[in-house]
């Protein structure tokens, strides 16, 4: 195996084990260098399989490049570098190391040419991301990480059973477009969707991610869900069910984010919302739609990381994360505020930001295919994104009431990471051409037409008007909103207590009855055999002779009849 055929993801995965050995600037330098080396590797790989090895009876291809793989590998590596820059002040090195194994595994999935390699990197991601979450070191993070890992290991088992069934039926391990028609392909799709945050288990995402540290959630937001988007684009383009799943996710994210008080949970729900747009695009399945889904995953990673860096900076400087405790921070955190607003505009697909040039392609694909309901729902959802993330996040964190908090902007490296990602959001939005050339299919779409810009401005501005007119209805309260995780966080434990309580009662009764029976036997035995018991006494010879006579007589009688 030469350097050329080394899986690019492994550079990060193995490099992660170097990080704990280094300190200070050396660690920061290596953390930025590793993604850069891997990026060079990704872009020097030729199209097609670069590494192929025999495994059991199969040929597995851990490294295989094409435009789609490169697009996702590139953004995962940019994210790893940007996240590392932001996280330089993080005291625990476990988090950064785990994040690099996590990011490297995501690159591994993006470059994998067969289902076995996909599965191996997929599981590595689950373990590494759990460690990222765990390293926050709080009791909440520990509990959340256990629920998180159980969900993902269950998803992994479903995926593995699917792969086994699929390979058994077809004899083919290569990873290419499938249709959900057999048990194997359905289970593979299900395994992918669990990681995408699809219903009915979307709740794992807002339950777990916001419990990570101020830097941990920046990494977590990028890899798991977007790797799921990648495998769905590769594996199930045009699977109609994804249109329905995606549209559900879009509105689920909006409604729950509108009710949420924790700033990072708002952003967690909005991940589900944004992935919903991508999943819908994959379900539509035309070249325009798949380009849109891939492009949106790319831009989403940048602006969502930016939003979470902005929220992470607030958390780092104030230690607070509830909207009810925040407000008025724009006065002392200008860089964080402006970068947060740029991220908020990008997620809202505001013209001249990255979200505008990517998401528009998904809506356009729905219009081209004359999917009226899907198009109307996507358009409503675009307005809803501005409502729940575009305005709500910056408004409640940086403006609204004055909380009296006057934290400064965070240290230079955190500011630098934010400014860099904000520049990418605007740069891609203003000059989309180079970005469009990275997409899997040739782009024939022109985002900047006068009607389109005007339409988007109308949609977003009137969504903004609705926000401020209905502000009294959105007053923040110290509440959470129940979700399907209630089933395993409340109902499950209560059932266990109830059933367990019942079992204990039955067990106690049975044992009490049994012991009582044993005691009675003992009492009788004591009465007959113990001390003065009838069988323990010394009998006279006459009594013995009488008893023997009776027994002999009885046996004689039995003999004759």
């Amino acid at each position: 195996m030469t350097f050329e055929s080394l899986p690019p993801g492994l550079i990060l995965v193995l490099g992660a084990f170097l990080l704990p050995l280094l300190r200070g600037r050396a660690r920061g330098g290596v953390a930025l260098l590793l993604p850069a080396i891997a990026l060079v590797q990704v872009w020097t790989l030729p199209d097609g399989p670069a590494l192929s090895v025999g495994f059991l009876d199969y040929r597995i291809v851990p490294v295989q490049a094409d435009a789609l793989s490169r697009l996702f590998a590139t953004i995962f590596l940019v994210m790893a570098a940007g996240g590392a820059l932001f996280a330089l002040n993080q005291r625990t090195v476990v988090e950064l190391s785990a994040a690099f194994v996590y990011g490297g595994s995501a690159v591994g999935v993006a470059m994998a040419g067969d289902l076995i390699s996909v599965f191996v990197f997929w599981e590595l991601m689950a373990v590494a991301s759990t460690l990222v979450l765990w390293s926050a070191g709080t009791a909440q993070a520990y509990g959340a990480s256990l629920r998180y890992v159980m969900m993902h290991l269950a998803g992994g088992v479903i995926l593995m059973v699917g792969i086994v069934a699929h390979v058994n039926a077809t004899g083919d391990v290569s990873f290419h477009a499938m249709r959900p028609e057999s048990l194997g392909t359905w289970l593979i799709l299900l395994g992918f969707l669990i990681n995408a945050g699809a219903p009915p288990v979307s709740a794992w995402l807002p339950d777990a991610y916001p419990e990570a540290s101020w830097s941990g959630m920046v990494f977590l937001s990028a890899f798991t869900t977007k790797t799921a988007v990648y495998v769905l684009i590769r594996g199930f383009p045009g699977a109609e069910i994804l249109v329905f799943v995606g549209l559900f996710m879009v509105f689920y994210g909006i409604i729950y984010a509108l009710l949420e008080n924790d700033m990072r949970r708002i952003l967690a729900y909005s991940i589900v919302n944004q992935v919903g747009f991508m999943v819908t695009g994959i379900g539509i399945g035309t070249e325009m739609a798949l380009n849109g889904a891939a492009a949106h995953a790319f831009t989403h990673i940048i602006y969502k990381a930016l939003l979470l860096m902005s929220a992470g900076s607030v958390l780092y400087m104030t230690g607070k994360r509830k909207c009810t405790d925040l407000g008025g921070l724009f006065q002392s955190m200008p860089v964080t505020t402006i970068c947060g607003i740029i991220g908020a505009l990008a997620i809202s697909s505001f013209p001249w930001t990255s979200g505008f040039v990517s998401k528009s392609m998904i809506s356009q694909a729905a219009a081209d295919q004359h999917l009226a309901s899907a198009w109307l729902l996507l358009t409503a959802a675009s307005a809803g994104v501005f409502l729940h993330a575009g305005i709500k996040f910056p408004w409640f964190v940086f403006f609204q009431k004055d909380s009296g908090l006057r934290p400064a902007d965070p240290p230079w490296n955190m500011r630098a990471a934010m400014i860099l990602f904000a520049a990418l959001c605007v740069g891609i939005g203003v000059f989309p051409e180079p970005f469009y050339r990275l997409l899997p299919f040739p782009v024939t779409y022109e985002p900047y037409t006068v009607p389109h810009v005007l339409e988007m401005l109308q949609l977003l501005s009137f969504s903004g008007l609705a926000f401020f007119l209905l502000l009294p209805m959105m007053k923040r309260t110290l509440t959470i909103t129940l979700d399907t995780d209630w089933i395993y966080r409340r109902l499950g434990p209560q059932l266990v207590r109830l059933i367990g309580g019942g079992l204990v009662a039955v067990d106690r009764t049975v044992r009490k009855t049994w012991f009582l029976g044993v005691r009675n036997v003992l009492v009788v035995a004591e009465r007959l055999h113990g001390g003065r018991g009838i069988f323990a006494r010394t009998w006279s010879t006459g009594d013995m002779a009488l008893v023997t006579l009776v027994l002999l007589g009885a046996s004689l009688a039995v003999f004759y009849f």
Partner: protein
Amino acid sequence: MVNASGAGGKKHWLVRPSTIKGLWVGGIAFLAALVGAGAFVHGHAYFEVDGSFAFYAWYGFATCAAMVVAAKGLGILLKRRDDYYDV
């Protein structure tokens, strides 16, 4: 822009009532201009409804209002104290 006024200090210019009033007036003028511009610029309508006047304006407003009301309704059923799972 950094004007860290302490307690009792003068309010930041952005949060003074006069500025807020100005923002509302400017904002409404901007919305009116957007709707006005719609009379001159016609995009390609793919379905019937998106060809109606100022479609994106009224549709954006109406659907957002509907989503806020829907969230409020769902909140009545599903909202709990934020220490719900801790106790």
